[in-house]
């Protein structure tokens, strides 16, 4: 029941138009065709949607990982007192509604001339991504014994060297999952992308899909593009979901 819409989408994307634009649609296709995929990729401005989405999501991921790895490491190593307060601040910032972010960023970026720029959108989406990544990595770094740091520092390594050479290599699985989450957060994001990038050639994939849906003409193409746009979601499910479940279990035990 729950998976029915997605299955209908994948199956629909390989139906010929005659089976989509009909008053008596069927769940399974009678004939298979890749027409909608080829038409969509040949005749629509998809390459710019995809290019923008990939560029922005990659930059958001890189920026979020760098900032949140540093923040989570410092927080687990130094914040003995005041940790409760810092946690609260982070949770609060993680909850800031999209609408407050989009209005705030629009005004600020307009002021400094960064509307319609990758930098502006990356900054905006990082406001959603970074607090989430800090939360995920924090849980992981807490589990890495401080003895390891101390041993490295006795050997003369600085804090930054310890982080780069000892902690980060251990944390590669966590960094990978966190990276996947922040990539997909950006890949899926609509509100900021549709408002901060107004120029036609700077629109991202979710914005493009929303525009096509509003026109409501090329249904075959819309569901073909949508099927492609869900690929990163499969990657999250396959590689990163277990990590999130573990994080939630730990939280559940705590609460």
């Amino acid at each position, binding site marked *: 029941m729950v998976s029915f819409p997605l299955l209908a989408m994948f199956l629909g994307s390989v139906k010929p138009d005659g089976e989509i634009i009909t008053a008596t649609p069927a769940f399974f296709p009678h004939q298979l065709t890749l027409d909608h995929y080829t038409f969509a990729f040949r005749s629509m401005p998809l390459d710019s949607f995809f290019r923008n989405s990939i560029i922005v999501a990659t930059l958001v991921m890189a920026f979020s990982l760098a900032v949140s790895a540093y923040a989570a490491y410092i927080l687990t190593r130094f914040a003995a007192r005041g940790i409760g307060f810092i946690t609260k*601040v982070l*949770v609060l910032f993680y909850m800031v509604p*999209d609408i*407050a972010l989009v*209005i705030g960023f629009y005004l600020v970026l307009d002021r400094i001339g960064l509307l319609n720029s990758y930098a502006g959108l990356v900054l905006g989406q990082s406001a959603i991504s970074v607090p989430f990544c800090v939360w995920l990595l924090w849980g992981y770094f807490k589990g890495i014994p401080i003895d390891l740091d101390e041993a490295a520092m006795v050997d003369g390594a600085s804090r930054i060297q310890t982080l780069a050479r000892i902690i980060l290599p251990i944390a590669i699985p966590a960094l990978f999952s966190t990276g996947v989450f922040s990539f997909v957060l950006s890949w899926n994001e609509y*509100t900021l992308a549709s408002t901060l990038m107004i120029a036609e050639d700077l629109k991202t994939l979710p914005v493009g899909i929303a525009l096509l849906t509003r026109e409501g003409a090329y249904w075959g193409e819309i569901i073909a593009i949508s099927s492609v746009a869900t690929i990163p979601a499969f990657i999250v499910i396959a590689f990163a979901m277990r990590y999130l*479940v573990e994080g939630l279990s730990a939280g559940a035990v705590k609460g």
Partner: protein
Amino acid sequence: MKERGLNNVLLASSLLFLIPLLIVPIFYSLSVSLQSKAALGRESGWVGPENYISILGNQEFWTSLVFGAVWSSVTVAIQFIVGTGIALALNQQFKGRAFARAFLFLPYVIPTTVAAGLWKWLLHENYGLLNYYVQMFGIKVSSWWNIEYAPLSLTLVAVWEFFPFVTLCVLAGLQSIPQELYEAAKVDGASAVRRFIHVTLPGLRSVLFVALLLRIIWMFNKFDLPWVLTKGGPIIATQNLPIFAYRLTFQNFNMGMGTAASNIIMLILIVMTLVYFRVYRV
């Protein structure tokens, strides 16, 4: 003493990201809400709480607040029934369980505009597969997005997209209930229903409560899904507070009122988050 000073500098440096990412946009919009009159985004000198007063005197604000509160409560309630039910089913041993789990979580991680487009297609009044099935039961709807059906359709799509979060939380919670409790209850001759009421539910209480608060906060502040599906319409029949604030800012270009509305949403969020802290005791 010196050591502690260094610690504090490091700690502060780790939170520096908050300034460009969150503090600047939030405080800038606070300052705009206190200065800008209707004019096109430019400040016109301090006007004090004027924008806030006109928001609170605006009937549309209250209509949006009520719709948002009702819509988020109803969708969250259904998300909980569906999400918990599916989590309990998934917790049983059966063939293909890992696959079923993976597939069920998909709606939560696909782009919202894909979910919106997909449901617009399924419910399309001429070609929609789901619309076609419903018609076979003799129900004929001229449009699923008209004033009568739009709130219902919007609720349906929101439940479908967001119930997996509840499932995820409940599954995590179920894993934290010790298996011995169930065995002890079985030894005492408790039926499956009684085991559910006396072991499972109490064990899930804190998880359910935290998930409930988070979902209510997130659904109350939800912008993208209703915006892409209905733009708050027809007229303002499905307009919640974020859509109200967005339209003031980006359709009427009334930056003063728009920022004021968005700051009122922030204030509501802060109150709800304080409740969350109380419950979660972080």
